[in-house]
């Protein structure tokens, strides 16, 4: 299909029925684009124009939304779109060689569509399968885990033979929960409806008061008191109140929500329903990250079962006036949408740019109405608190960090997977349990969290000491911590929404500085520049993405400085310019880009 040729009659009809299914609601723009792309493979401009007219939006607005999300394509892409998860853990498992192998077998250049339009191969941010990587995502839908050279060779053949991805060996797409250690949240679950019944036995305010007694704090990273958030939302005036589940688990190295969504969906949905009772909401939304698209159908079935059981819908559990239902919105590849106001923008069919706050979502959230946004794990915790009481929960963990936390353990250890511990657990204990040996460092809470060296393994998980959103990536002494930081720097630059100057330009400058060090052209002056950028981005960005983007850099420079210095040309030499970069003009003028035209290839 040419970029500007009109839509085929079939495509137009398909698009029309999608628009109709969404009631031509402009707030459904992201969902409509996603569904049409699943049908057509990409989003040609005539389709964007059709959508714009139908939704009464400008073409530029629709185009701006379409090219904000990494999983949307406004240029033709291969019929098979292979995305290699490119988290540091995938890299440590050898994804780079596998990507090159696949490109070689399929005779396709990375990041480019093969001339016959059959396949595109590229990388994506962490897809949440670090415990069973290297992993790929096919056509923004199907996952393949535990890649090996053999699997890649077979995959290349299947693609060449144009076997639909749904017909590939089923075991390739098998995703294990890998629960290695279960505590209260991952242990036996209350039967569906029992926690809700316990909540409904009390007045909403009584439920809220008990939640405050539990001292539960949000599990998504920021650690805001859930009871306080819900109280603010309940108190806020509005026509409708909304409950939103943030299942946009994008922090690299985090995959605990994947497991909760896979095997604990009832507990999660029950927590959302209890939230609706407590804050007085009638509508719930789940924002499911695009990488977890394969979980959509099972989650929808789970919702339907709950409707059939009278646990969702009108007069829930026979209580007149308690009406609540949940719809699932699937994201399209944007880490920044994990920030709650960006998530709401995306739910409203817009670019996922964080809002100016205040006002906060509890007062002015989805469609301007009072909205509580909570993490998957938080809702699950609420269900258990409704059954066992706030005092019980407050008795687990530490005074400021009550209850348990689920950790996604990956990297250099014998037993990667899911571990649940009460807050207050020692880092070293987790390392022992997962079979980590000769450990150099642990990245807790993902790239925007903290990097701990061996001197700090006696510290404890908790808001008082080492807070975490759930990632726990282990690096042994064979790893180059500079490469870890460089991977994270590329991640942040890739995921910056581009709205504010310090994050948009700063993340890119950090990448350029680190790549320069990697090429061996760096000097100690470059490390000084990195310090400056870190300082600026901590105070001047619009949201937390930019503010945290230099955390891995700061930690690794401070704790593993020799890893940086080994990449420096000289500790004292100040490089004036990059010789090879200077040649780029000459390359452009002469139209040459062969290996002889690059300095590093000349002896």
């Amino acid at each position, binding site marked *: 299909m040419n970029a500007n040729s009109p839509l085929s009659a079939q495509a137009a009809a398909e698009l029309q029925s999608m628009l109709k299914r969404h009631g031509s609601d402009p707030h459904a723009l992201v969902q409509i684009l996603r569904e049409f792309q699943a049908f057509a493979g990409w989003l040609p401009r005539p389709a964007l*124009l059709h959508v714009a007219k139908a939704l009464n939006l*400008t*073409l*530029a*607005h629709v*185009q*701006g939304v379409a*090219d*904000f*999300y*990494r999983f949307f394509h406004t240029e033709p892409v291969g019929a098979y779109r292979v995305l290699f998860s490119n988290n540091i853990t995938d890299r440590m498992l050898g994804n780079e060689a596998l990507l090159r192998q696949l490109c070689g077998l399929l005779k396709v250049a990375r990041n480019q569509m093969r001339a016959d339009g059959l396949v595109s191969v590229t990388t994506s941010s962490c897809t949440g399968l670090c415990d069973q990587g290297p992993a790929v995502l096919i056509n923004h839908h199907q996952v393949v885990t535990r890649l090996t050279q053999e699997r890649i060779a077979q995959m290349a053949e299947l693609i060449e033979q144009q076997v639909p991805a749904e017909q590939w060996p089923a075991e390739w797409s098998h995703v294990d929960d890998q629960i290695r250690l279960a505590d209260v949240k991952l242990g036996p679950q209350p039967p569906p409806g029992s926690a809700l019944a316990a909540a409904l036995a009390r007045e909403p305010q009584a439920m809220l008061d008990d939640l405050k007694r539990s001292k539960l704090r949000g599990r998504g990273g920021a650690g805001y008191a859930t009871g306080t958030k819900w109280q603010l939302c309940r108190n806020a005036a509005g026509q409708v109140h909304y409950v939103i589940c943030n299942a946009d688990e994008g922090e690299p190295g985090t995959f605990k929500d994947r497991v909760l969504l896979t095997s604990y969906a009832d507990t999660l949905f029950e927590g959302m329903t209890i939230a609706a009772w407590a804050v007085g909401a009638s509508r719930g939304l789940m924002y499911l990250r695009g990488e977890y698209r394969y979980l959509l159908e099972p989650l929808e079935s789970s919702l339907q079962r709950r409707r059939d059981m009278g646990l969702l819908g009108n007069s829930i559990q026979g209580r007149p006036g308690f009406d609540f239902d949940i719809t699932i919105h699937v994201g399209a590849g*944007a880490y920044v949408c994990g920030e709650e106001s960006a998530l709401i923008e995306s739910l409203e069919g817009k*670019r996922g740019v964080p809002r*100016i706050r*205040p006002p906060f979502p509890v007062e002015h959230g989805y469609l301007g109405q009072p909205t509580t946004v909570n993490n998957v794990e938080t809702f699950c915790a609420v269900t258990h608190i409704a059954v066992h009481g706030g005092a019980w929960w407050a008795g687990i963990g530490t005074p400021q960090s009550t209850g348990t936390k689920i950790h996604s353990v990956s990297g250099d250890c014998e037993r990667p997977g899911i571990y649940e511990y009460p807050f207050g657990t020692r880092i070293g204990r987790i390392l022992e349990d997962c079979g980590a040996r000769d450990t150099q460092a642990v990245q807790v809470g993902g790239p925007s969290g903290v990097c701990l060296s061996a001197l700090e393994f006696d510290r404890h998980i908790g808001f008082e000491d080492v807070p975490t959103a759930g990632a726990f990536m282990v690096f042994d002494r064979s790893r180059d911590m500079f490469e870890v930081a460089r991977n994270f720097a590329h991640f942040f*630059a*890739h*995921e*910056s*929404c*581009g*709205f*504010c*100057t*310090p994050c*948009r*330009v*700063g*993340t*890119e*400058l950090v990448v*350029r500085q680190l790549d320069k060090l990697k090429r061996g052209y760096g000097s100690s002056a470059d490390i000084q*520049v990195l310090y*400056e950028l870190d300082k*600026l981005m901590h*105070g*001047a*960005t*619009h949201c937390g993405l930019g503010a945290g983007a230099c955390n891995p850099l700061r930690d690794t420079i401070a704790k593993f400085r020799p890893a940086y210095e080994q990449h420096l040309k000289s500790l004292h030499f100040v490089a004036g310019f990059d010789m090879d970069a200077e040649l780029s003009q000459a390359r452009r003028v002469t139209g040459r880009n062969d290996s002889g035209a690059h300095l590093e290839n000349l002896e």
Partner: protein
Amino acid sequence: MMNDHRIDALSPGTFALDGHEVEFGPGDSILQAARRAGHYIPHLCWHPDFAAHGSCRLCTVKVNGRTGAACTIAASSGQDVESDTPELNAQRKTLLQMLFVEGNHFCPSCEKSGNCLLQATAYQMGMEGPHFEEFYPNRRVDASHPDLLLDLNRCILCGLCVRASAQEGKHVFAMGGRGVSSHLLVNSESGQLDDSAIGPTDRAANICPVGAILPKRRGFVIPIGQRRFDSHPVSQEDAT
């Protein structure tokens, strides 16, 4: 305009800006109140006639020790606001350098030189060079319109044209792309300016603080030396 800027005498309040007392009215941001009172806080994406954007971050100040953009923080009684400090001005200089290296800004050959808010603010903050390596991006120039030139090489993504055009009900501009590839989009089927609804007298066509949107055939009508910032630095401009 004056009415919009009136301070409601019924609910006066004051905060301290670098030790000066500043009065504010209901709904004022720190930047709004400061500008009305004749104080300068560096800014690029803020404009008194439009809702705050908060993207350039030049107006970042410290309020009771916490940093934030003065254009997005509501003024309230008793705030202690620091703005004109060596630390914050150094940070502003870095932000300006970032904007300069991100785009293609060649002041000597730019018609906007002397009238440019980016250039004037860079002078104000004592910026003497780019500090970082230039990106030299390959950006679009749209000369399709008979009266207007759109040169994205100079765009700083302040969104003022987007807001102005929305306010005029035309919605000619929108933001596209993401991260360092973010860029301005023109609303028309071809994506070109001449197919859009923009007119040369639109607010959106005249609000660009830099030289990204320029009227054609006006080159050097005002000679260098007689331009907006030739007689006074940006800090001594009126609030409007």
